C-alpha cells in the first residue's frame, strides 16, 4: 500500500484541522486549566466531536460506527494534537473501543459500542501501577468467588478516570507479577462499591487519576476476553493505543516546530533576524528531517493496524512508531522553548504547553526506553 492518504482521508484531515483550530484552540486548554474543570476537557466540545461522528470512526457499522479505519482516526488525532485539544477521544475511542472490539464478546459489543459511539459512555483503561509501563508486572488481583470476582489493587495515571462511566481494568487472576500468563481484563462500573478515584493535577492540564480497588466485586459476565489469557489481546490493544497516541504527538510536534520557525523568522537581535544564524538554521533543518521520519512511521503504523497486522509484528511496528515520535517530540518541544528564549519560559506564551504535553504523552503506554528495549527484544538481539 502506498504511504499516502486517499482523497476521503485528506478531506477528513482538512475538516479536522478546521474544527480543532476554531473550536478547540490551545486557548481552550488554558481556560480549562484556569477554571479547574473536573473532567479536564470541555463537555460541549466533546459533544461536537460526537456529533461529527468521530467517536465512532473506527467502530464497525453494525454497532453504529463509521468503520472508516485508523488512518482516519489518525488524522483526527494528529489535528487535535496540533491544538492540544483535550477530550476523551484517546481514552474512550482509541483504548476503550479497541478493547471492546478486540476482547469483547458479541453481547458486550452490541451493548456498549453503540453507547460509546453516541458519546454516552466514557471509558478508561486502568493499567499502570507505577512510574514505568510494565503490563506484565501487574499486581492488582482478581480472585474468583462463586459467580463473581473480587478486585484488589491500585492503578495509577488512569487517563480520564474522573469522568469515566466504566473502566477496563487489567488484573492478575493467576501467576506471578512479571509473567504474561494469568492476566485478565474486567469491565468495572466506576461507581462500584470499593472503587475510589483521586484526580491528579498533571503538568499538561489533562486528567489522570489514581484508582484504588478495595474488594470490588465484579460479576463474571464482566470479564472482557478470556480469564488468565488476556496478554495477547492486551498487547494488540496497547499497540493500537501506542500508534494512535503517536499520531496525536506528531500533530503537537509539527505545530511546536512550525511555531518556532515562525518565531525565529521575526525575532530580531544583533541587528539581524535570529533565523539568519546558521547555528539555529541547522538545528531547525535537522528537526525538520526528524519530523519527516516521524510522519512516515505514524502513517505506516496506522496503515498496519488497518491492514490487520497484529501480535508481535504490530508490537514491533508500535515500538518503532512510538519511540521515533517520542524522541522527536521531546527534542522539538525542548528546542521550541530554547529558541523562543525568555518569552518561551512564560506562561503567557503557548509554547510551554507543548513542552508539558510532550512529557506526559512520552509516558503514555511506554516511554522511549520501554519501546527501544522492546524493539530490540523483538529483533532477537
Amino acid at each position, binding site marked *: 500500500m502506498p504511504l499516502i492518504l486517499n482523497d476521503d482521508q485528506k478531506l477528513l484531515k482538512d475538516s479536522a484541522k478546521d474544527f480543532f483550530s476554531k473550536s478547540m484552540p490551545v486557548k481552550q486548554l488554558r481556560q480549562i486549566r484556569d477554571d479547574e474543570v473536573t473532567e479536564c476537557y470541555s463537555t460541549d466540545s466533546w459533544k461536537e466531536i460526537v456529533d461529527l461522528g468521530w467517536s465512532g470512526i473506527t467502530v464497525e457499522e453494525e454497532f453504529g460506527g463509521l468503520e472508516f479505519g485508523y488512518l482516519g482516526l489518525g488524522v483526527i488525532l494528529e489535528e487535535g494534537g496540533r491544538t492540544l485539544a483535550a477530550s476523551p477521544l484517546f481514552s474512550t475511542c482509541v483504548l476503550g473501543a479497541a478493547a471492546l472490539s478486540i476482547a469483547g464478546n458479541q453481547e458486550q459489543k452490541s451493548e456498549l459500542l453503540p453507547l460509546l459511539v453516541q458519546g454516552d459512555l466514557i471509558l478508561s483503561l486502568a493499567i499502570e501501577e507505577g512510574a514505568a509501563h510494565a503490563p506484565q508486572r501487574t499486581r492488582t488481583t482478581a480472585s474468583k468467588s462463586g459467580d463473581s470476582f473480587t478486585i484488589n489493587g491500585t492503578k495509577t495515571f488512569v487517563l480520564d478516570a474522573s469522568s469515566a462511566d466504566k473502566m477496563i481494568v487489567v488484573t492478575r487472576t493467576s501467576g506471578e507479577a512479571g509473567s504474561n500468563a494469568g492476566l485478565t481484563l474486567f469491565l468495572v462500573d466506576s461507581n462500584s462499591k470499593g472503587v475510589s478515584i483521586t484526580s491528579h493535577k498533571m503538568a499538561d492540564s489533562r486528567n489522570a487519576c489514581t484508582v484504588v480497588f478495595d474488594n470490588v466485586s465484579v460479576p463474571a459476565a464482566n470479564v472482557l476476553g478470556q480469564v488468565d489469557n488476556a496478554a495477547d489481546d492486551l498487547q494488540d490493544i496497547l499497540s493500537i493505543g501506542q500508534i494512535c497516541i503517536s499520531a496525536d504527538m506528531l500533530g503537537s510536534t509539527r505545530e511546536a516546530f512550525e511555531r518556532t520557525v515562525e518565531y525565529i523568522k521575526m525575532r530580531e537581535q544583533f541587528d539581524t533576524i535570529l533565523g539568519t544564524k546558521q547555528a539555529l538554521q541547522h538545528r531547525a533543518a535537522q528537526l525538520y*528531517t526528524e519530523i519527516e521520519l516521524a510522519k512516515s512511521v505514524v502513517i505506516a503504523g496506522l496503515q498496519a493496524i488497518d491492514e490487520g497486522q497484529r501480535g508481535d509484528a504490530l508490537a514491533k511496528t508500535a515500538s518503532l512508531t512510538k519511540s521515533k515520535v517520542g524522541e522527536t517530540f521531546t527534542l522539538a518541544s525542548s528546542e521550541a522553548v530554547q529558541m523562543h528564549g525568555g518569552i518561551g519560559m512564560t506562561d503567557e506564551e503557548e509554547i510551554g504547553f507543548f513542552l508539558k504535553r510532550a512529557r506526559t504523552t512520552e509516558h503514555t503506554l511506554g516511554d522511549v526506553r520501554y519501546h527501544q528495549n522492546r524493539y530490540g527484544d523483538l529483533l532477537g538481539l
Partner: protein
Amino acid sequence: MANLETFKSEATAWLEENCPASMRKHGGGADAEFTRKKRSGDSLLWLDRCAEKGWIAPSWPTEYGGGGLSTEEHVALVGIMKKMNIPAPLGGMSLTMIGPTLLELGTEEQKKEHLPGITSGNVHWCQGYSEPNAGSDLANLQTKAEDKGDHFIINGSKIWTSGAMHADWMFCLVRTDPNVQKQKGISFVLFPMTDPGVSLSPIKLISGQSPFCQVFFDNVRAEKSNLIGKVNEGWTVGKRLLQHERSSIGGGGSSRFGISMTLNDAAKKYRGDENGKIDDPLLKLELTRQDIDTQAFALTTKRITDETMSGVTPGFATSMLKYYGSELTKDSAEMMVSIMGPQGLGRDDDRDNFSDDERGSTRAWLFTKALTIAGGCSEVQLDIISKRILELPTG
C-alpha cells in the same frame, strides 16, 4: 492492476531465464559501475541481455533503448529483482545523473546521440563539477570556455572526478562569462575524454584505492551541439543534475557495500554470548536505535516516492534524503568496524589475517566518509533545507 500482475509474472519469468546464476549471489553486482569493455563472463552476459531487453534503463523511452516501463512497473521490477537477489546490470553516473538530466533538458538530437550509448552499456560518463577552489561553493568554478562559433575551447582543471580513468565522456560545468554574478556565467557542456587536450592525474584515497583523478584541460574542444540548455544558463541544468545525484547518494541508506553480513549478524558473531545473544546492553541499544532509524528512513523514502507517484512534486526532499541517508550509512559503516574491533581495522592487502567481509567493512568505513562530503556536504544540504523548505532568511 491486472496488467501489473501480468507484468510481474512475465518479468519474473524473464529474469529467471536470463540472469546467470553466478550473478545472483553476494558480490554479483560488483562490476555495476563498468561498461562493456571492462567486463567479461557472466557479468558481460547479464549486461548484454539487459541491454537487448531495454532493462539497463527500464523506465526510459524505448526509442532511446530504454524499457519504456511505467513508474509502477519499474518499482515492481526493482522489487522483484531485490527479492530474487539480482543486481542491477549497470549503476553509476551515466544512468543516475546525466541520463535523467538529458531526458529532461536535452534536445531531441542530444538524446538521440547520447542516450543509446548509456542504454546499451557502451558509454561511460564522468562528472566535471568540482575544482580546487570550487567545492561546496560550486558556483565559484573557474574552468574557462571560450566561444569559437560552432565550438568552445576549454582550459582549466577539475578535481575529485570519480571514474575519470574509465570514462568515455565528461559532462562539465564551465565558465563562459566571468563578468557577471557567478551563477549567471556558467554553461553545461559535454565532450569526449579522448580529446588530446585532456590529461589525468590519479588521486589516492584514505582507503588506499584510487577511484578518482584531477583532470587537466589544455585547449579541449566541445561542440556547440553538445551544450545542454543555453549559454550561461548551465547553473540551472547543473543543479537539476545534482538533485538526481543526491537521490542516488542518499537513497541507499542501508546499502552494505558488498558486505554479506548485517550489523545485527556481525554483532552476534563478534560480540554474542554462547547462544548468539548480545549481553552488552549498550551495544544492544545502539543496534536497536540504528535499526529503528534505518526502518524509519526506508519508510520515508517510500512515502516520498509514493507522494511523487501520486503527483506531489518532491521539491527539495532530495536534500533531506541525501542528508539523512548519507549520515545513516556512514554511521552503519562506523558501527560495523567498531563491532569487529581490531579485526575491522586490517590493511586491505592483508588477505591472510582479515576475511573478505572484514576488509570490505574497513573499506566501507573509509569510503562512506565521502558520502557526507560528495554531492554537496551535509552542511550544504542543511542550508538548502533551511532556506528552501523552511524559508529561513539569509543574513
